[in-house]
């Protein structure tokens, strides 16, 4: 307990990095219980010695070398997603390119770290060939990339011998949970650099998920910020599955989101007509303007659309790593980052509901002021120094985790009706395509007659959101149909979709 209190005492201030500024939280600790007393936004240069800084850390570009088996790619992607690094190149032993072309690909990718996974002993020769391409491609590069080798022990040693001239580390096999954890830990050390006061944002999010899940219910933390997008699922046992995708976001990574999603992919979420070149200019300007504020409705709509696609594509990446379903069925969803900071909570709800497209009911929460991220960072710092933060943050966590809405997706029957706490909430029959909100606060037992849906959750300011639009969510391709559809969805949560 003494150790725990001293760990907290070293950081009375928590700076949560935005893009070029930080949100500075002051922390009080009466009787060992932490509380966040107030926040202000300051320039990143105004540093306070000893303050805990929650940041993204350095960019970590990872190139992966592996045998041809598709399941290896999935495991590698899972490890990289857990680490918050960017997978810039995946070279496989069956790559048809010549040594020179492989080397050129590695040189162009400029990796900071190369992960070589040797799954079986007979894969070693192929991986050694890829390491030769690495040696040719990164000859004389300063600083040289670090090499991490994992997998079958004898083969790993042979690959290590081939990586002459490089700093090589042997890590546990990333196909095992301890291997993923070891790789993620190593990458985070690289990203953190020498700044010991920094808690990486992904660490804070994972700790936040653990803290909330420790109360007995599985939780999903969705973080869409300017430069990264994270999905963290935790259960009561403390097991965490995470996908941290960078660069992908609705701010300084807006251009990367458009590159992933395509112009039409982003444009489809904007509830009015906008031509592609105009939208692209706005995206590029936003990407080069850290912490820009959307002063006009059209810019806000762009950020909302980018958040939709960032979340969708983070899920796509998670799916490629075999993580999709575990990330979508949590009964509690907490939204953080820019997606939670929109002035209207309904914007947050729309981004989350549409982006996740979860088929399961969930109680939605939002962290509009990064307070929960700050709490996660405090807890992560405490845990890193050997303490157990659960008791110290419990009260503040309970105060801040307040429900926003209870979202109930449903595929309605012919005469389905919504019953809340045993009473019929609406006389009108529920039809496919319906999307509306029922005013309600507090505990809610929701039953959709004629369907198997019978669920329990908590509603807040946005009430109970009944979503019968079906999964996957389909938007009409033509503006004449798409725009009214979007406007109807915005209006369903009491939003004006007539800006711009």
């Amino acid at each position, binding site marked *: 307990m003494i150790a725990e209190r001293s760990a907290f005492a070293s950081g009375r201030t928590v700076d949560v990095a935005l893009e*070029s*500024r930080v949100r500075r939280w002051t922390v009080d600790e009466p009787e060992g219980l932490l509380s966040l007393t107030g926040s202000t936004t300051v320039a990143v240069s105004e540093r306070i010695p000893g303050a805990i800084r929650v940041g993204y850390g350095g960019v970590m570009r990872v190139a992966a070398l592996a045998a041809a088996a598709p399941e290896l790619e999935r495991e590698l992607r899972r490890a990289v997603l857990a680490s918050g690094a960017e997978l810039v190149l995946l070279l496989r032993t069956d790559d048809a390119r*010549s*040594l*020179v*072309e492989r*080397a*050129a690909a590695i*040189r162009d990718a400029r990796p900071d770290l190369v992960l070589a996974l040797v799954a079986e002993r007979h894969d070693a020769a192929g991986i*050694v060939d890829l390491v*030769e391409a690495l*040696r*040719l*491609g*990164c*000859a*004389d*590069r*300063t600083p040289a990339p670090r090499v991490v080798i994992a997998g079958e022990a004898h083969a790993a040693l042979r690959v290590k*011998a*081939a990586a*002459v001239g490089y700093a090589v580390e042997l890590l546990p096999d990333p196909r095992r949970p301890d291997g993923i954890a070891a790789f993620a830990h190593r990458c985070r050390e690289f990203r953190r650099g020498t700044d010991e006061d920094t808690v990486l944002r992904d660490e804070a999010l994972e700790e936040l998920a653990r803290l909330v899940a420790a109360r007995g219910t599985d939780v999903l933390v969705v973080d869409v910020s300017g430069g990264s997008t994270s999905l963290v699922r935790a259960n009561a046992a403390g097991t965490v599955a995470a996908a941290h995708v960078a660069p992908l976001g609705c701010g300084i990574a*807006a*251009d*990367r989101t458009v*590159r992933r999603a*395509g112009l039409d992919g982003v444009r489809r979420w904007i509830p009015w007509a906008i031509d*592609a*070149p*105009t939208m*692209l*200019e*706005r*995206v*590029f*300007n*936003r*990407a*080069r*303007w*850290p*912490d*820009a*504020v*959307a*002063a*006009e*409705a*059209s*810019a*806000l709509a*762009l950020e909302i659309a980018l958040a939709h696609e960032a979340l969708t594509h983070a899920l796509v990446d998670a799916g490629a790593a075999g993580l999709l379903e575990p990330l979508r069925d949590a009964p509690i969803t907490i939204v953080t980052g820019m997606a939670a900071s929109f*002035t*209207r909570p309904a914007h947050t709800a729309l981004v989350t509901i549409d982006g996740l497209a979860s088929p399961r009911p969930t109680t939605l929460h939002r962290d509009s002021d990064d307070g929960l991220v700050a709490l996660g960072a405090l807890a992560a710092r405490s845990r890193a120094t050997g303490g157990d933060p659960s008791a110290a943050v419990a009260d503040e966590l309970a105060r801040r985790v307040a429900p926003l809405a209870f979202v109930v997706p449903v595929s309605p029957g012919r005469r389905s009706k919504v019953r809340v706490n045993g009473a019929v909430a609406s006389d009108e029959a529920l039809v496919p395509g319906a999307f509306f909100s029922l005013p309600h606060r507090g505990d809610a037992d929701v039953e959709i007659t004629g369907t198997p849906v019978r669920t329990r959750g908590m509603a807040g300011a946005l009430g109970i959101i009944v979503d019968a639009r079906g999964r996957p969510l389909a938007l009409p391709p033509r503006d004449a149909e798409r725009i009214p559809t979007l406007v109807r969805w915005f209006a369903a949560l009491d939003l004006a979709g007539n*800006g*711009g």
Partner: protein
Amino acid sequence: MGWHYGRHVVEHPLPIGASSRPAVGYSVRAGDPLATGTLLGSPVRVEGGRKLGVEPEDVERVARVPVGTEVARGTVLARTGRRFARAVTAPIDGRLVHRSYEGDFYVAPIAGIWTVRSAMDGTVTRSDDAAVSVEGSAWSLGGVAAYGPDAFGELTLGVDAPTDELQPGRVDVRMHDSILVGGARIAAEAITRAHACEVAGLVAGAAPAGGLRVVYGDEVTASGGPTLEDRPTVLCLLGFGIGPLPTEIYLPFVAFGGHRAAIHVASARLFVFAPETVLDRSLDAPAIVLSGDFGGVKALEGETSLTGVTRFASDAFCEGLATKDGVVPVPNVLPYDAPR
């Protein structure tokens, strides 16, 4: 900061296969070939250590040809013994590109030649297979993003005012090998026309992002980046869409007309090799403002005052700054050279 005169280090990353590059201390001029190399075909692997009967670490000792050397078919790559000699020879004409840790040799046919040119007048401070760096003095102006290969040429004004758009009609073949200065925007057609007229590069306050996508492909991002292929070179100084140049940025372009200049794409900087005395001092550029819809960037001009926390049309609340064009969010105002 805007325009300033000083010493700059410019790094030129090299592709694989460099065959000649200057030594450290060598003097170069912008536009001069800095390093040349070969485009390589698929290499042939030649057994080394095992065929020679030596340990891999001893192959270096018996090698006759250093890595990087051009070889003809039959050239002895390594040889051991005297009376009962063992040797490995090049199986094809090409270059010895690599020696593996197991002591094998890779010889690749030569498919073409590449050249990297200096983007700075100065002295070579680093030279290896990865990059060549040149340090020198010049007037410089940083931009927000650049696209295409590095460009070199005489600086030429392509507009009559800093608020003008560079129209395709203003670009013709007389401007070949020059760096053309636009005003608030480069029309997309002007980019392709300038390339057809062999204009070395284009500089303006902003470029149309859609046009950049057409020219550089769908993978293009707001950060820009260098390319080796034969493409136009564009330097955006303020942003995308429209960006009228402030007077403090535009007037030196007039003074620098006719001087040699270079666009270094990787760092999105324009260097002008004019005497320090051409301008009497470094000109501080005004702050720049991002428009409320993110559609353009312009200089902050006239009287301003803080308005406190203000509600904007998007429902966003934040500190506002009253300008002659209305209240803008304070975070949307940045110094010209703020890290972006």
